């Protein structure tokens, strides 16, 4: 009798379990390649932090996979006053994760915080902004000193993230420990180097697009380990799969792959004018730099180091983007011409040191470049340097060549201006390249009003810089994601961010 009772109860419980499963919390576990830094949109500085922000903090506008500007917290906008003013209408009924309403005052507060908080990393991005005027409860006007075409692109990233004024004022610069924004998930907890946990924000304005109760970000630096976690099912989605692991992912039926060419580029930055170490054939004579470029077979480089998975490139924009200067295509390898150039300069065997951050893929690429360039007569010494130390050496001009990349920005201005402009920060334009004609074109591209006009200016910039070659662009990485084969709705974007809207596990 008692036994029968027990069995009945057990059966009932067992019957409940599948339902319990349906009621159970759904979690999306994402594996990141690094541990993000501080989660304050004003102070944050890492690429990987932006992936977390995509779930945590909505911004005024967003981008589409085709790099068009689309509404997010702002629904429409219009340039006024000769492109010196941007009037933006805000979405109605948006709440912050602490319940406070998002309105024009909150937008004004956030933008001013980006401009004025000591140590703000956003100031340089929106320095063109002079003031923010409140037109009415849901309309703001951004006032500029002069037209600045990249502004909307900046507002599609951290500079456009709107934070809760109440929370920000309460926490001050400790805001990053408990950020409060208007995104689909709110901050729950963070254990450094272990996990970041965000829970669904019930009052999110676009809540129908969100199909998970919780998002957990797990930083796992080693790509092999990250992949094995995905294979064993401990992670649902991982970013930056190593190019050499793609075959493994393709063969594994538990996983599926998603990829897109990124906005990033990698190349060799050459010290052409910063200090003593610029005074060598490579730094002084553009023909030597041309010979270097001609000695490299970008397709083979891509094949050997990245299994052919990345995209070779020769400009700061990838060939697949609308901003690529089509008239200046990727040159083919030409060792004979390289040798002829070096002979003409009088240095058939130039020798230089290439500083390479201690990253396995980059070091591999460096070795391949060293080997290829040797066939044209170059004697390249690889100087593996810790990334932190390399930044310092570059800023000081204590290098000859630097194999380094840039994570890429939506607007082309972000990928070229600070690198070759005379006004570029010394730590970025570390070779101190300076050409007034190039600067004039870059500035004109900023104030021009149509994409066609801007493109014309960038074509002129390319005509100069691809000839002078202060940077020899080599490849554009692809963002490579591996995920649970059952995960649906994931869309890759060129900025590499993982947007939770639409992702679900059926």
């Amino acid at each position: 009798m008692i036994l029968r009772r027990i069995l009945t109860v057990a059966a009932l419980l067992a019957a409940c379990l599948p339902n319990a499963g349906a009621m159970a919390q759904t979690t999306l576990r994402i594996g990141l390649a690094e541990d993000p830094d501080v989660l304050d949109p004003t102070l944050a500085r890492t690429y990987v932090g932006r992936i977390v922000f995509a779930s945590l903090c909505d911004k005024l506008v967003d981008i589409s996979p085709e790099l068009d500007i689309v509404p997010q917290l702002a629904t429409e906008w219009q340039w006024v006053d000769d492109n010196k003013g941007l009037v933006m209408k805000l979405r109605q009924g948006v709440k912050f994760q602490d319940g406070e309403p998002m309105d024009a005052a909150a937008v004004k507060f956030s933008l001013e915080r980006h401009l004025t908080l000591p140590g703000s990393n956003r100031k340089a991005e929106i320095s063109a902004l002079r003031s923010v005027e409140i037109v009415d409860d849901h309309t703001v006007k951004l006032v500029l000193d002069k037209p600045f075409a990249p502004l909307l692109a900046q507002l599609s990233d951290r500079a456009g993230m709107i934070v809760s004024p109440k929370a920000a004022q309460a926490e001050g610069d400790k805001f990053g420990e408990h950020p409060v924004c208007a995104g689909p998930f709110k901050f729950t907890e963070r254990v450094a180097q272990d996990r970041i946990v965000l829970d669904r924000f019930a009052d999110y304005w676009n809540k129908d697009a969100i199909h998970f109760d919780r998002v957990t970000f797990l930083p796992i630096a080693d790509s092999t380990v990250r992949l094995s976690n995905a294979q064993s099912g401990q992670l649902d989605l991982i970013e930056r799969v190593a190019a050499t692991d793609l075959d493994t992912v393709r063969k594994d039926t538990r996983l599926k792959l998603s990829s897109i060419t990124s906005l990033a580029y990698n190349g060799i930055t050459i010290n052409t004018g910063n200090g003593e170490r610029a005074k060598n054939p490579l730094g002084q004579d553009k023909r030597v730099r041309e010979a270097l470029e001609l000695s490299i077979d970008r397709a083979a480089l891509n094949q050997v180091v990245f299994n052919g998975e990345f995209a070779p490139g020769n400009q700061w924009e990838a060939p697949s983007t609308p901003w690529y200067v089509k008239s200046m295509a990727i040159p083919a390898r030409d060792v004979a011409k390289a040798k002829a150039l070096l002979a003409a300069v009088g240095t058939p065997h130039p020798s230089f040191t290439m500083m390479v951050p201690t990253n396995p893929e980059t070091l591999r690429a460096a070795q391949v470049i060293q080997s290829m360039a040797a066939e044209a007569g170059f004697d390249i010494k690889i100087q593996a340097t810790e990334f932190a130390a390399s930044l310092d050496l570059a800023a000081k001009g204590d290098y000859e060549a630097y194999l380094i990349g840039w994570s890429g920005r939506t607007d082309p201005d972000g990928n070229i201006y600070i690198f070759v402009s005379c006004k570029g920060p010394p730590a970025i334009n570390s070779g101190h390249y300076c050409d007034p004609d190039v600067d004039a074109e870059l500035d004109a591209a900023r104030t021009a009003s149509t994409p066609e006009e801007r493109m014309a200016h960038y074509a002129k910039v390319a005509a100069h810089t691809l000839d002078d070659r202060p940077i020899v662009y080599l490849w554009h990485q692809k963002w490579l994601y591996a995920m649970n084969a059952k995960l649906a709705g994931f869309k890759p974007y060129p900025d590499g961010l993982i947007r939770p809207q639409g992702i679900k596990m059926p």
Partner: protein
Amino acid sequence: MTAFLLRRIALIVPTLFFVSVLIFGLQQLLPGDPALAMAGEEQDPAVIAFLREKYHLDRPLPVRYALWIKGVAQGDFGESIRIKRPVKDLVLEKLPVTGELAGLAMFVALTIGVPAGILAAVKRDTVIDYGATMAALWGLSIPNFWLGILLILIFSVTLGWLPASGFVSPAESLKQNLLTLIMPAFVLGNAIAAVMMRHTRSAMLQVLDSDYVRTARAKGLSEWSVVLRHALRNALVPVVTLGALEFGALLSGAVLTEQVFTIPGFGKLIVDAVFNRDYAVVQGVVLCTAFAYILLNLFADIAYALVNPRLRT
């Protein structure tokens, strides 16, 4: 005895001072400007200037040291430049993780090493002795990160029995927690097991040869009774004290083990902090672990001195 104790305790201060100077110097003099490393990708000069000001990077070295030590004396170990959290919080967060790993590793080391050492001593110069000694040598000679990689290859990638990486806190799931720690604890403990085995063996050999034990044998006690009740007690003292000193080796080993298995403990914290030029973190963590190590040494010395009055010089 008191004089001995007081003197040993007094000596901690200059030692810790030297540790602080050493680790401070090693961190602050690392090549690379932390302001550049911590500034955003755009390297905005305004941000760089701000960081220099905030973290006193432009002040002379002795001034920075004084500021740091003053903070430490008040319990403020500074904050991580990278994620802007107090070092103290980070330490308290990571301590249980590495602590659990180290504890399990020690458990592995003791349960394998000590009995193996006893057995080898008792069955001296037999096949068992040779076998155990060789196994210990193998354990000492294998690079622990290679062992880790091999184990991951076998048990995670091929067999799928154990998770390849990560750490689940015991509060969340004890079973998962132990599963994630089996391989790391074994890898970390295996070298220590080898050391413990050798120490135990030689301590036991010394005791087994002593008059005290010879008397016990002469009294007609069985060999195992002699071993377990008389020899072991005396042999264990040097073994235990040496075990305490292996703490330093545990932390060294933890650095690599946590890297291979992606366990968010001290080891990983320090390695990442060195590469990120996150000074305060490295300085704070090393100071704490050095202090713990010095204390353990002190206890070991006291235990030794209690047992052997002749050593109290």
